[in-house]
């Protein structure tokens, strides 16, 4: 099972999908596209905590994707 963690005010919202399940994969992709269009940055990481790399396209076979909101100067 793959998972996507969306960093938000609740801590994070978790979306899981089975790459073999089209509906689940499509739903995850829709969320990914909606949020990255909004300015979120997407990082693909391994579940064991490897640092991760930026992705711009949804990867249905990703182990774990973290979506972080746009950063602003403080």
């Amino acid at each position, binding site marked *: 099972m793959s998972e996507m963690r969306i*960093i938000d005010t*609740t*801590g994070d919202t978790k979306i899981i999908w089975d790459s073999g399940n089209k509906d689940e994969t499509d739903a995850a992709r829709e969320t990914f596209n909606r949020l990255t269009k909004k300015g979120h940055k997407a990082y693909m990481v391994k579940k064991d*905590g490897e640092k*991760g790399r*930026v992705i711009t396209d949804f990867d249905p076979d990703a182990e774990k994707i*973290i979506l972080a909101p746009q*950063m602003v*100067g403080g």
Partner: protein
Amino acid sequence: MASFTTSSSATTWVTWASTATASTSNVWVQWTTACTDTAVSIGNLARAIQPETDEQRQTRERQETETRLRRESEILEREEAKQKAETLLLSMLDPEQTKELQEKNSFVLVSELANRYRIRRGRSMNVDQLDTEGKKIATLCAHPREAVPDADTMVAQMLMLTNHEQDFLRVANRQRV
């Protein structure tokens, strides 16, 4: 009190302040009897405040309970968010960084361009740029636009520094040491 005074009360005050013959009881009598129909005496004011009815009391108590429960729920939600964020942050750290976070509430990372940064627990002005010897040379401030828990902010900062450091440096406000 000012709304219940009249020019007569000014006279009363002058009497009070200026003469040794003005006793408290005299001044009080003067004060209350000096009030005109346009102002309500303190005694009338007390009688004017109606005791609340049973229905009003029940409404007030219900509203107070609802407010209290809502606040307790918000506190619980914030605590849950904080715990989730902490779990995510810990999943991103190596053993050394985890130990450092537990001991010092901060951890050091090597960035995309091989620079060193220390991320301290917090949301703003919590990223230190370090030199090769680990000495702080600047403090940077960049955080998610949304008000996410601090641990989430640290995850976002870490991911940005390790993947697109130049973007972080462009966005962050910088304070030199």
